[in-house]
């Protein structure tokens, strides 16, 4: 890919078209079968997790859940570009990125099942938990970027949000300080075209969401968010830029929300099946599988083995989650402050007295 000068919106970065045909020479990392299979497997695992989470929610065994159906390439593409020193600040649809970074399936089930321990990651200890108040994670990323600069660490803060998040002040304000202070931060917008019921064009009249980087004086670019190779390549470039002291980047990943907003949503209230169905031909698993089949001998047995492995892992994790008893009631008091104040000790006692 030719390098584009800052402040210009380059063309949309894409390597594999929806049918899996390469439209540009593939970047170095994707010439390796193993690397591609790893990314493909991570996307399949994410989708399998998604299906299990929804089925658990539908049967009353999980809380409200935000599906990442169709957006697996964004999560996996970003995370696969990151190093251990980097810090992930997700919104709430990046299960695939969390899994790649070492968050366990059991932890994800626990979190979505309504248990705070799901955020106490055994790995990825510096990563932030899911962020529900839309766009409020972007200022945190600026703060992590600041800490990285002050401590002279090698990492980069990577925050992800949706298209709706770009309408919020937090997004603009954080983007602005990242520009002003040249902080090592990458902002990724997973533009799935819908903020619950509001379509992208009703959200903003901006030409692209990447254009919003212009106001902050940092580069912004659009990426085919259904092409995991493109997402990873663009993220790698942005990370390198940040690591070299050149500051932040805004990456807009174009995708489509194939499912409901969450399990509490019914998308048929505001969009028709005919709106959604064309996007099924563009989703990210199909194209990478097609490429693997055509260029790396990915066989039916490989696919079946992968699916079976994913299902086994996820069933096992779900069983562990379902068998995990809730925390003791007193836990609600125990993590408010490092030292529990008298007030809370007294209130905890009241709970015990009943």
């Amino acid at each position, binding site marked *: 890919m030719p390098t584009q000068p800052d402040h210009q919106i380059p063309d949309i970065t894409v390597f594999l078209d929806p049918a899996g045909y390469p439209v540009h020479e593939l970047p170095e990392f994707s010439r390796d079968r193993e690397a591609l299979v790893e990314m493909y497997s991570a996307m399949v695992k994410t989708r399998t997790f998604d299906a299990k989470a929804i089925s658990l929610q539908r049967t009353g065994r999980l809380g409200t859940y935000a599906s990442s159906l169709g957006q697996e390439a964004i999560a996996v593409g970003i995370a696969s570009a990151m190093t251990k020193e980097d*810090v992930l*600040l997700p919104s709430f649809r990046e299960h695939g990125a969390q899994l790649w970074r070492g968050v366990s399936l059991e932890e994800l089930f626990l979190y979505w099942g309504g248990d*705070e*321990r799901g*955020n*106490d*990651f055994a790995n990825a*200890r*510096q990563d*932030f*938990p899911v962020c529900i*108040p839309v766009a*409020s994670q*972007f*200022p*945190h*990323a*600026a*703060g*992590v*970027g*600041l*800490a*990285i*600069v*002050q*401590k002279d660490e090698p990492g980069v*803060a990577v925050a992800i949000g949706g298209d709706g998040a770009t309408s919020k*002040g*937090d997004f603009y*304000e*954080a983007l*602005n*300080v990242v520009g*002003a*202070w040249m902080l090592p931060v990458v902002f990724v917008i997973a533009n799935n075209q819908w903020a619950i019921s509001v379509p992208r064009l009703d959200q903003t009249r901006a030409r692209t969401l990447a254009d919003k980087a212009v106001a902050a004086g940092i580069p912004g670019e659009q990426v085919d968010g259904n092409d995991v190779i493109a997402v990873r390549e663009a993220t790698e470039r942005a990370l390198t830029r940040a690591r070299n002291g050149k500051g932040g980047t805004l990456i807009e990943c174009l995708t489509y929300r194939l499912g409901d907003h969450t399990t509490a949503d019914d998308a048929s209230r505001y969009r028709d099946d005919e709106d959604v169905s064309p996007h099924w031909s563009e989703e990210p698993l199909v194209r990478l599988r097609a490429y693997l089949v055509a260029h790396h001998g990915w066989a039916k047995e490989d696919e079946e083995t992968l699916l079976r492995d994913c299902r086994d892992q996820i069933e096992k994790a779900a069983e562990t989650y379902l068998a995990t008893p809730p925390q003791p009631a007193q836990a609600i008091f125990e*993590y*408010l*402050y*490092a030292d529990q*104040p*008298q*007030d*809370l000790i007294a209130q905890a006692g009241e709970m015990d007295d009943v």
Partner: protein
Amino acid sequence: MSECTMIEAIRMALSRALDENPDVVIFGEDVGIDGGVFRATDGLAQRYGASRVRDTPLSEAVIAGMAVGAAAHGMRPVAEIQFTGFLYPALDQLANHASRLRNRTRGRLTCPMVLRAPYGGGIKAPEHHSESIEAMLAHIPGLRVVIPSSPARAYGLLLAAIRDPDPVVFLEPKRVYRAIREPVEDDGVALPIDQAIVLREGADATLVAWGAMITDAREAADQLAELGISVDLIDLASLKPIDRGTIRSSVEKTGRCVIVHEAPLTAGLGAEIAADLAEHCLTSLLAPIRRVTGFDTVMPYPRLEAHYMPDTARILKAVHDVMEFA
């Protein structure tokens, strides 16, 4: 030991904190070369460099949100909001993140940050510059809210706030910034962060106040002493969590309580203290608990401001009322 003002004591504590911990970083609007609009950070950028004392863009949500991110990633940010009237965009970050991070990650990520902000009236400032919003902040679980009332307490409490492992909103009564001088030793000794301070001991009534109201309450206590009425004067200092024990013990002794705050009456912290005394000290009470507070009005512009502010006369009347009741 030199005499200094509260603003000088705050600067001294900030300087001490920058000296003793390389993770301390100060940021906010105009805190750099300008030294802050009240000069709390005067000279610090020059002394510690622009990377540790940083001028932010004009974005309160980002000031608070960046403090959350930096604190969670190992820094000790001491951020400034220029006036509490401009703090509201930061409330989202305080309520949804700073106060919850430890709890929601079960202690994996923490938020040792301080958000300083001048608050309160009495200096004829423009509108949106004089409000007292401590009750709003004290209602947030997981946050600490601290208010000093004198230079020495500002020094000790600010050091305590910066060293505390949890988020602290540190509200500075700007009316006191330059009004009082007292000896402050720059000895690095912090005050306990969660204890009320008994400033004066008496027998007849308990006066509870904080921030600039301590000045009026002390004046009232002086005048009452001349009339032979002695009071416990308690500086609450920590508004979240509240040191209920100190207040209860005092009221169990005196049997009468007057609570003074600048913030509006309804759902103010006076209500919390009064409710606590009603629940725990009913049999000690000789008279109804009285509150002397700002009114449930919008903070008046400077020409009418004095009518809003609780003052010595109103405090005296309330104490006389409770003394006459029994």
